[in-house]
């Protein structure tokens, strides 16, 4: 261990910035060095990926039918 190493506690706060490629090169290198030796953080990162993917699959199928009809009527009346 040296002073430049990153703790798990720090890493978990940088996952979104890491995904967005928004870290400076030095910090990014510290994250990647840490990930190579830490199963826990690799799992955490993967959990985060699954979370983002799951959020991306949210579809809101149940729009209130009354409200929907109101909007369609507005369209009909205008056209």
């Amino acid at each position, binding site marked *: 261990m040296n002073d430049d190493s990153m703790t798990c506690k720090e890493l978990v706060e940088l996952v*979104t910035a890491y995904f967005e490629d928004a870290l400076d090169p030095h910090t990014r290198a510290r994250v990647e060095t840490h990930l190579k030796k830490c199963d826990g953080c690799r799992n955490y990162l993967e959990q985060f990926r699954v979370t983002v993917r799951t959020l*991306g699959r*949210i579809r809101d199928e149940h729009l209130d039918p009354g409200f929907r009809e109101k909007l369609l009527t507005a369209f009909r009346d205008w056209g």
Partner: protein
Amino acid sequence: MHPARMLPLPVEFRPTATFVRDGMRAAVMILPILSIAEPIPWVSMPGTLRGESADESALIASLRDGDETVFARLVDRYTPAMLRVARGYVPSHEIAEEVVQETWIALIKGISKFECRSSLRTWLFTVMINIAKQRGVRERRSVDAEIAAFTCGTVDPALFRGPNEEWPGDWKNWKEYPRAFPETPEGSVLADELVAVARAELDRLPDRQRMVVALRDILGFESSEVCEMLDISIANQRVLLHRGRAAVRQVLESYLGVGP
């Protein structure tokens, strides 16, 4: 990424005669037209909310022709997310519905003048947020103050080693925790359950986090677009996104039975 996409999108304000004649409120008269000079990156994601721009001119032509099926499809696709974002600005679901209705009416009235210089959904959300802000009567702290109030991390500090332990700040027992999520192939029952769990947690998030997560992860807007719409810095946008995602991660972890 094309360098132009990295820059803040230029916003042009175009008060149009049509809107003045129609007596639209000031917020709608000033239509922000976002100039996007290149194809929009979410075109290639079919079957998601992100796939509207490829056939956008055809879609706008259909709306101008009064094609109700096309309008209904757009309403079904965007209204729930619009309600979710609007709710962050106004004190009740009823007012959020009014805001969203007003936005659709602005689109209906403005469609003949609509220029394909911004994607339709960017237009929808930008106009909707403008209207919502006009109606937002709830007292709000500034976003900066809200974010400054986040003093703790997004993971329970008890899961990390204390300052007097060996390797302070690392996982207490990294062999046991965090554990990988089990495989959940798309279309499986478990995957569908996870989506439902994520949705429920999304609705419980604080307003700003919910808005940012919805715009970024559900609708797939770029961070620069979200910053512009919500009038927040890129750093604050990221903080809100990260906190929202972290909260959802935690409930998924518990649901999957791999929590601490």
